[in-house]
C-alpha cells in the first residue's frame, strides 16, 4: 500500500488528524471523534477498514493495552514525500533562468 493512496481519502486524513491530537485511541474513541468533530458517520466496520489501509501504509501502528487495541500515528513514511519533492527555501525561489527553461 503506497502512502499516496492511503492519504488520498478525507476520512483517512481525519483519522490521522485525530491520532495526532491524541495518541493511543481505541476504535470506539476514533469513531466518536470522527462523527462529533468531522461529521463522518461511517460505520465502525468502515472505519476499521480505513485503519487497515493506514496500517498497511505504515502510517499507524496498533498495540494492545490491557485487553484493548489502541492506534498510534507514525509519521515516518511521510518523509518520502518531502524527499521526493524537497520544500524550497527562500533562496531557492527565484525566476527560472533561460538555461533552466531550455533544459
Amino acid at each position: 500500500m503506497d502512502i499516496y493512496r492511503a492519504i488520498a481519502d478525507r476520512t483517512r486524513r481525519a483519522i490521522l488528524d485525530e491520532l495526532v491530537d491524541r495518541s493511543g485511541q481505541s476504535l470506539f474513541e476514533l469513531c466518536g471523534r470522527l462523527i462529533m468533530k468531522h461529521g463522518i458517520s461511517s460505520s465502525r466496520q468502515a472505519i476499521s477498514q480505513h485503519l487497515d489501509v493506514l496500517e498497511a501504509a505504515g502510517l499507524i501502528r496498533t498495540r494492545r493495552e490491557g485487553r484493548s487495541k489502541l492506534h498510534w500515528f507514525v509519521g515516518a513514511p511521510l518523509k518520502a514525500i518531502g524527499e521526493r519533492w524537497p520544500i524550497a527555501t527562500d533562496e531557492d525561489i527565484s525566476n527560472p533562468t533561460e538555461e533552466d527553461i531550455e533544459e
Partner: protein
Amino acid sequence: MRINLTSVSVDDQAKALRFYTETLGFRLKHNIPLGEYAWITVVSEEAPEGTELLLEPAEHPAVRRYRTALVEDGIPLASFAVDDVEVEHERLVAEGVRFVQPPTDLGTVITAVFDDSCGNLIQITEEKGQP
C-alpha cells in the same frame, strides 16, 4: 412502560459490588442470595429511587466472547452521567482506576472511558451547556 433495571455483566459479583459502591459511589439496593450467585443491584446516591443497575454474573460463554470483542474495540458496556468529567476522572485515577480514554471534548458532550476491573469498559459523560 419505564426502564427500572439495566445490567452490567461482571466477572466477580463481590468484587464488582465493592467497585461500584466504594469506588464509583453507588448505593447498594438489593443483595439477595440465589444459590451460587446473588441478585445485586445498585442505585445512584443522587437518584435512589431511579433505575437500578444489576451486577450480573458473566457466566454464559457468549457473554464472555461479547465482552472481549467490545473491550478490544474500546466500546463501553454502560454509560453514566456526571456533572464534571474532569473532576470524576481525577478522583477515579486517584482511586487507581485505569482510563482507556481520558476526558475528551466532543463539542456538545465531554466523555471519558474507564475499566471497571470486572471485565467492562464504562463511559462517563457530561452534557455541555449551550455556549
